[in-house]
């Protein structure tokens, strides 16, 4: 069933990107969709049922919150770059984490990296190694708001 859904999505995506409706191009698109679905089917046999991120209201809420964080830290980093005294004190520190599932870990590590000023350099079982432009950025992560929001998603 989910292969059918995936096929429909792929077809819509292909048509949106192509914008041509001649028989030749449409059949090429159909072939691409079939090949893609076949590859996905084969890969699912290799890794079993992989983790899947299903779109939900909570997820979009989190993304909106993340976007706001990205804007805030962009402003912060830009201010530091332009200020004549260059107030940066890079730190590379251990960040204890409580996220458990691979999907939560991936989302958390990527959210940290996407926010300017913090960068995940390593992901371990119970902690990340995070490089930050300033101690305050690390302290904010240790405050754990981002982690709480991710865990609340229940993915």
């Amino acid at each position, binding site marked *: 069933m989910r292969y059918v859904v995936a096929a429909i999505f792929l077809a819509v995506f292909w048509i*949106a990107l192509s914008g041509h409706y001649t028989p030749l191009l449409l059949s090429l698109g159909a072939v691409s969709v079939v090949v893609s679905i076949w590859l996905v089917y084969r890969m699912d046999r290799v890794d079993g049922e992989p983790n899947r991120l299903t779109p939900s209201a909570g997820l979009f809420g989190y993304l909106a919150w993340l976007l706001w964080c990205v804007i805030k830290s962009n402003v912060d980093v830009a201010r530091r*770059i332009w200020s004549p005294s260059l107030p940066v004190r890079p730190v590379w520190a251990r960040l204890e984490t409580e996220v458990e599932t691979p999907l939560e870990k991936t989302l958390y590590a990527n959210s940290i990296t996407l926010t*300017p000023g913090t960068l995940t350099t*390593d992901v371990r079982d119970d902690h990340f190694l995070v490089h930050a432009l300033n101690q305050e950025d690390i302290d904010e992560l240790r405050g754990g708001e981002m982690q709480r929001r991710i865990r609340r998603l229940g993915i």
Partner: protein
Amino acid sequence: MLLLEILSGFCLLVGGFLCVTGGIGLLRLPDFFSRVHAAGLTETLAAPLLLAGIMLQMPWSLDLLKVLFIMILVLATNPTATHAMAKAALHGGQEPQIGNGNGQGETSSKA
């Protein structure tokens, strides 16, 4: 339509300013890892703002959707690319410079 023009111009201006800021950050910041943060500026907000500025001026068409896809692609690939760069630098023996060179800031704690 005037409002759209103004919004679009605002996005383009701020996006362009952030691009310049990212470039200046690349030159001013002390080491590789802090420069990555400056590069993040151009990718996480400047590029989406520039694309949004363009989208606001476009007529309704499939191209609008394509620009939106580009924006999502940039945002989705940025953490992966950044992480890969940092990992490669660490693997190559590059150590992050900690503090200002005067002993401030938390010391590194490798595991």
